[in-house]
């Protein structure tokens, strides 16, 4: 099992290096590498939990590993369609960085050392900066610069947090070498010094919060999303946001254990609640004003990240289970949505929500796919997000009724904004002026497969996945004695 | 017992109408036709040949019969001579208003069917007047039913008979409200003029314009019967003395006499109002009907709050 875990991480890395120097039929190599990585991840996840020195696997990072591998595969399938206008040079730049990015994602999830986790996330930022500036327009350069500066600063603050965690571990643990490994840290979590862990949590919250797009630190996200091309968007929203929250989740487990005895034990939860609510509110309000389709769904990502953080802040096992379910469904659904959005912008020939009209008439297949994906994001029934929002709201109403009411209000505003933007795009007459951009159409079956997975995760989740999520939730919400 | 009451009711209706017309003529110091004139009109109309507009459907011919039957049925439940009427156990006060509504709906459908200007005009005015008058009637009967804790007419009149007519404020308000409603429902002067044919003012007459022959006779007759229905209703509720409690011939004769006296008095009151009050503008009528509705609600409140005896 450890072998397949190593494979899951190393294959993308090797592919990145190979693609960097090898120019011919890069698309096939990229596809095969992602497929192998996904299979390796699947094999690793099916195996038992494993706590190695460099890589580790436990209930919490299993679901994320699987979804990241799967999303990488589906996005790789759609890459040729999107890279076709960029030509040979663009592809040569895109594929290696794409594989490097997926390698860093897998490494961040599977690594057992918090230092390596930080290095992997920093690597992910570096890999994506050039991709955001892929099509060289002034807006793209500006978005990339902002993305790079803001995420760089954020990640630096996260490094300070990691250092403080190591410092606290250094004091508590006997052998300093083990001071950075998750299993050791979790074991000794209750002996860590509360004040140090508190400050470390703050730094990590601001650092990884920037990467996850929580509100006061979210400004880079809409700009980066409006500039990036669709496959990158799918990867960013599908995996990067989840990994950032995964890291934050890990640190929160340590802090909860450390602060369990001290007076300010519920401050981390309060902070998460505050950040979650602020993100949902601001994202909902700004959703009303959007005119660019990619920016619109960028804000929708911020809103869903806010809801998940709010659920994590609640702290009960049910709320944490719902938060994990929400993250998984959102990752899968949003990745599928951005692939379809990319195809829609290519088909309708414009990115502004006011000029895309009557998709159902233009291309019924694409129209229905877009409508289904948007419904998934709006949290409508058959999809998993509805079930997770249902669980979150009911458990929130039980513990924090007033906050739950305000969260519900924000969700309603967001739903209204999304509906008001998406409905004219899909329904109604297609204006005659829309010229047919591309003749060949994108293969939509991967997106439909992902949306199907979201429905399965929601309504009829198979028992094995249910148990994995349940004991992950229990481990997160109830700190180890 | 039931067919006798229905027959008596049907025959007396034109007589009351004739009596009121004669009184009004006398007040305007002209001789006026004899009270039997409405009977003669009905006999003449029954003999004439009915004419039907070719734009009318089967509803036009069926409407008069439904109207006549509904009004007759409403009258059968009224305690005219004896307190206990056969149909009382089956229908109550609310069902009576339902029959009146059925009659009015049949009239309006009949008037709208040929699709002429007059039918539509009369129907739209009648729609407004009846839509505002009916709640007052319903509410008045409802507050009276509240006093007797039952909506069965016979029980209500019986209760009023044995508790005697002490002066209750709710009765006074309800009496005024019902008087106004009776005036409007029967197309009497404050809201509508029965004798006019002027497009600007007529309501009831406009609807009846297209019928002829036996259909017109039936419609006229049910109009008369409606006036008698209101007369008897007011008499029973507010002056129940003299009603026979069991069907012995002597008691019946006495009850008939009392009834004739009461109806005559009501005829005088109606004639007086017709002679004195000018025709109101159509859109002043809702003001009057709102006043009637207010009086009925006031009656209800005064009963509920002041005269509460569980």
């Amino acid at each position, binding site marked *: 099992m450890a072998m397949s875990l190593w494979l899951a991480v190393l294959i993308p890395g090797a592919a990145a290096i190979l693609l960097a120097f090898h120019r011919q039929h890069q698309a096939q190599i990229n596809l095969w590498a992602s497929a192998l990585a996904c299979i390796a991840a699947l094999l690793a996840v099916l195996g038992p939990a494993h706590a190695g020195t460099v890589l580790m696997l436990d209930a919490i990072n299993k679901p994320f590993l699987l979804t990241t591998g799967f999303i990488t595969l589906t996005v790789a399938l759609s890459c040729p369609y999107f890279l076709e206008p960029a030509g040979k040079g663009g592809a040569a730049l895109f594929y290696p960085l794409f594989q490097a990015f997926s390698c860093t994602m897998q490494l961040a999830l599977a690594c057992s050392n918090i230092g390596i986790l930080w290095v992997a996330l920093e690597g992910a930022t570096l890999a994506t900066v050039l991709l955001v500036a892929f099509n060289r327009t002034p807006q793209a350069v500006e978005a990339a610069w902002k993305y790079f500066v803001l995420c760089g600063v954020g990640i630096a603050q996260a490094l300070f947090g990691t250092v403080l965690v190591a410092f606290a571990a250094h004091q508590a643990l006997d052998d300093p070498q083990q001071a950075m490994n998750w299993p050791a840290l979790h074991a000794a979590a209750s002996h860590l010094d509360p004040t140090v862990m508190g400050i470390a949590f703050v730094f990590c919250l601001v650092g990884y919060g920037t990467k996850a797009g929580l509100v006061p630190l979210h400004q880079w996200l809409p700009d980066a999303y409006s500039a990036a091309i669709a496959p990158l968007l799918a990867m960013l929203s599908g995996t990067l946001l989840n990994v950032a929250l995964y890291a934050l989740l890990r640190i929160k487990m340590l802090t909860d254990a450390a602060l369990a005895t001290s007076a300010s034990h519920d401050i981390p939860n309060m902070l998460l609640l505050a950040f979650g609510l602020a993100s949902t509110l601001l994202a909902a309000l700004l959703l009303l004003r959007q005119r660019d389709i990619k920016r619109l769904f960028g804000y929708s990502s911020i809103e869903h990240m806010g809801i998940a953080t709010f659920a994590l802040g609640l702290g009960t096992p049910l709320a944490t289970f719902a938060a994990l379910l929400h993250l998984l469904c959102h990752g899968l659904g949003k990745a599928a949505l951005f692939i379809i959005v990319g195809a829609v912008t290519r088909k309708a020939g414009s990115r502004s929500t006011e000029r895309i009209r009557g998709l159902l008439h233009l291309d019924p297949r694409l129209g229905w796919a877009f409508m289904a994906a948007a419904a998934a994001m709006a949290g409508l029934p058959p999809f998993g997000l509805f079930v997770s929002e249902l669980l979150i709201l009911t458990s929130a109403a039980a513990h924090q009724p007033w906050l739950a009411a305000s969260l519900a209000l924000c969700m309603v505003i967001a739903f209204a904004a999304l*509906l008001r933007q998406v409905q004219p795009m899909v329904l109604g007459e297609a204006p005659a002026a829309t010229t047919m951009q591309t003749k060949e159409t994108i293969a939509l079956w991967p997106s439909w497969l992902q949306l199907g997975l979201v429905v399965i995760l929601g309504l009829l989740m198979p028992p094995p996945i249910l148990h994995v999520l349940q004991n992950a939730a229990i481990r997160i919400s109830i700190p180890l004695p | 017992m039931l067919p006798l009451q229905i027959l008596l009711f049907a025959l007396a209706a034109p007589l009351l109408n004739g009596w009121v017309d004669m009184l009004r003529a006398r007040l305007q110091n002209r001789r006026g036709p004899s009270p039997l004139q409405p009977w003669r009109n009905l006999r003449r109309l029954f003999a004439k040949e009915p004419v039907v507009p070719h734009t009318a459907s089967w509803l036009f011919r069926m409407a008069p019969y439904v109207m006549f039957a509904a009004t007759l049925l409403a009258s059968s439940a009224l305690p005219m001579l004896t307190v206990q009427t056969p149909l009382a156990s089956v229908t109550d006060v609310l069902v009576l208003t339902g029959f009146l509504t059925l009659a009015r709906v049949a009239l309006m459908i009949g008037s709208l069917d040929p*699709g002429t200007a007059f039918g*539509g005009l009369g129907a739209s005015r009648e*729609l407004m007047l009846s839509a505002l008058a009916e709640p007052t009637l319903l509410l008045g009967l409802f507050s009276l039913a509240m006093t007797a804790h039952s909506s069965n007419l016979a029980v209500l009149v019986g209760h009023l008979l044995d508790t005697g007519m002490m002066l209750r404020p709710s009765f006074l308000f309800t009496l005024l409200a019902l008087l106004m409603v009776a005036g409007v429902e029967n197309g009497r002067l404050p809201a509508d003029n029965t004798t006019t044919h002027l497009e600007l003012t007529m309501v009831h007459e406009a609807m009846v314009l297209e019928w002829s022959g036996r259909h017109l006779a039936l419609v006229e007759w049910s109009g008369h019967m409606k006036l008698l229905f209101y007369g008897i209703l007011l008499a029973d509720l507010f002056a129940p003395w003299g009603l026979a409690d069991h069907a012995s011939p002597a008691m019946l004769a006495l009850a008939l006499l009392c009834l004739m006296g009461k109806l005559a008095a009501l005829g005088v009151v109606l004639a007086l109002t017709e002679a004195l009050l000018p025709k109101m503008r159509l859109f002043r009528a809702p003001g009057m009907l709102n006043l009637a509705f207010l009086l009925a609600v006031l009656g209800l409140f005064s009963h509920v709050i002041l005269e509460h005896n569980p």
Partner: protein
Amino acid sequence: MLAMGLAMAAGLSAAGPRSWERLALQLLGASGLCSLAAGLWLLLGGPSDAVVMTLGVIPWHLILDPLSAVFLLPLGAVVSTIALYARPYLLHIETGFRRPGVATGFFVASMILVLLAAHAFPFMLGWEGMALASYLLVIQHHEESASRQAGLIYLLVAHMGALVLLLAFGLLAHGAGGPDFAQWRAAPASASAMAALALACLAFAAKAGLVPLHVWLPLAHPAAPSHISALMSAVMLKIAIYGMVRLCFDLVSVQSALGLAVTMITTGALSMVLGVVLALVQQDIKRVLACSSIENLGLVTMALGLALLYRTTGHAMLAAMALGAALLHVLNHALLKALLFLGAGTIQQACDTYDLGRMGGLLRRMPASGGLFLLGCLGLAAIPPLNGFASEWLLFQAALQSWQMEQGILRSLIPLAAACLALTTALGTACLLRLFASAFLGQARSRPARRAREAPRAMLLAQGMLAALCVLSGLFPGLLLMMLNQVTVALLHHPAVQTASALIITPVTATQASYAPLAVLAVIMIIALCTAALLHTRKRAALRRVQPWACGLGPPTARMQITPAALAMPLRQVFAGLLSIHERLGSPQGRRYHLEIADRTWDLLYAPVARFVMSLSRHAARLQSGRVRLYLGFSLGTLLVLLWVMSW
């Protein structure tokens, strides 16, 4: 349970190729009949069966008990008639989605799921699924912007209601220690339960279209195809009432629900009056029916409020009667409204317009559907022998018994509500009469109306079935009340009506009041027949046809006829305060008369809220000003604030 499986199958099979359309409709009809049979079988004495299975996250506890059986009856009846009706109706539709069967199937399945759910999560799943499926049906003709706009508002209000309901269920689950309805019944009364109940009733009011939240109803129904708006109006609105009854009377025990009862009565009265006034002035035939749904739902809510009031002041027997009246009106209104909507569908088929101003004189061209429509109108207008009158009469009897209450204020509230009821009944009769007259009577006002053809046989058969059901429940209310007694006994331990034989129903005691519709009809028929026989003794030739009188100016044309707007003009003047009316004489030279009637609640409640949210988003936009240094400042600021917070 079988019914829901069939409905789901219908939904899926409709997704199949075009040829499966017929199969889908048959499956839908079968599921309707199945649910009708399940309801009847339970109410006539069968045991209540339950299904418990957990599938993924959502535990599927489904229980069929008397209350859900009563609501299954209208659903089954309407769904089976719609399956019959839809076949010819859909042949004419060429715009919009090609397969409406899918959404219809899922719509019916989710409604059945809501009725049977005995656990908070499947209830919510069904509730939101119902909203989504009906949204897909409302935007069936998504070419016109009006139906898109209606769909948008409809789904928004439905989703808002669903979220509020989620909050309420969360509070209740917290109080009772678990989301299962059985736990809720056992839970003791607590303060949070009262707040949760109020929230839930707010959500149900939004779904039932009561006054402040009714704007979606007059928009959504005309947009959907007729058989779907029949299903929505007849059944979906009742599901909200089912929720209200289930929570107020069965699940949540609250010390005193006085405040809630009074608000329900006032909201009910308000939506009755406003609903009927709106219905009076509408020009579109389906809007009139939609607004009259608002009025009838208001009536049912007032009855429920009355029942709740009686229960809190300790008169369980009267509460049972009021609840019985409410449920009876739910059944009657479902049948009548479905009949009228299907009638509207046939009219639209015949002269492809919904505008009353362009119809007229259809009775001669379409006698059968005209007669059925007349029956529906009379029934809904509460004319004695028919079924609309029975439930309103029972409600009046319930209001009449208010003298047994002690507190003076409450005792005066009920007669006021009775006053509103009286006014609404009168106006309802006027509105339905106007609807029937302007559609069927007089002369045809437009060429399509002149050339209207009778509806195809299947449509008439469907309407005929519904009309038969209406007449049956009108003449024999006792049968229905016997079934309703089971529900009121289960909920309030008192039968709704003391003696409910087939012929006569007496709510309290014989001396007080009783009503036998069959006898009433018998006497009317006897009198009418004997007068007709009396007059027809002398053999008459065929009736002579002449020109109707038009002051001698030649034959009256269709333009001389009164228009629907003019028919309602006097009443519109009287109630001008409730509506925002804009009349103006347009070009050329003031010969075109324009009349727009908008709902006043729109600019009293919805426009200010929308403006406030937009201004909020303008302020929020300042946060994203585009300057990198400002963003870095935010990051530094957050860090410092958090460090300060942490070091308390």
